């Protein structure tokens, strides 16, 4: 859904739909509108930050973060300190990282997210 800003001047109309919020993330152009709204609610309520911290804490406890750091160090050693970019490291970690999240951690986060969605259901 592209954001075409049409300037329609309707004098007495109160039913004009609100303009979509400005987005800088190109992904959001392909999201359905409700995901965008949910995202906004997540961020504005502070829940997104809390969820992220919870996830980070669980991943730390189970050693996931240390595993990822080890992968990064190994890659850095091979490729050379000065040739490594953040992008490289992201690509190094992403596949293994997404696959190795423990099920209990994933379940806990998903449950919290679903609870949030239920609490904000219109």
């Amino acid at each position: 859904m592209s954001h075409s800003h049409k300037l329609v001047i309707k004098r007495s109309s109160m039913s004009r739909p609100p303009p979509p919020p400005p987005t800088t993330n190109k992904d959001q152009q392909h999201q359905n509108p409700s995901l965008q709204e949910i995202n906004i609610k997540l961020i504005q309520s502070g829940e997104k930050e809390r969820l992220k911290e919870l996830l980070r804490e669980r991943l730390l406890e189970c050693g996931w973060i240390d595993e990822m750091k080890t992968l990064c160090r190994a890659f850095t050693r091979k490729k050379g300190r000065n040739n490594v970019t953040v992008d490289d490291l992201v690509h190094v970690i992403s596949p293994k990282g997404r696959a190795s999240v423990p099920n209990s951690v994933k379940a806990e986060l998903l449950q919290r997210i679903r609870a949030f969605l239920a609490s904000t259901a219109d």
Partner: protein
Amino acid sequence: MSGPNEDNNTQLSSHIFGDLLDSIIVDVASECHRIAKLGLDRNLEEEEEEMRLSAQARARVADPSNSSETNTKYVVDIFGQTHPSVATEIFECMNCGRSIAAGRFAPHLEKCMGKGRKARLKVTRSSTAAQNRYSRGSPVSTYSPYSNSTSTNRLSNGTPSVAGEEYSNGTYEEPWNKT
């Protein structure tokens, strides 16, 4: 089966979870990138080595094959007790907060507190100020069992020779704690 709303919710949740995970992945990658560029992982390797040696020392002591009859390294004191060659009590390093075996404590402190070349590079101006403060006053001596003067010299000018003599055998003993 649940209605379409439930499936939508599940899909939504997974998507949100994926977002959070990606965000954390980027954070971790960014941090590792920083560590790599700043060369901080050199120190990390030393610490890993220390932890390994620490664990090794503990394992060697706990190993039942190191019994007092067979191992000639074990000396017997006047009470007939044997002491393991590497002290095994675990302490917490007051500088970095890590758990270190007593027998590895001195070498660890050397690296941690600034006798070693690498550790001294780590030290910033503010922490040398802190160290100088400690060396001038009477040290709350959990880590300077011998004469105060030599240990203060060690802290303030960091010459390797002084430290080497004190801890050449790698063991750390607190004389007033012996029972």
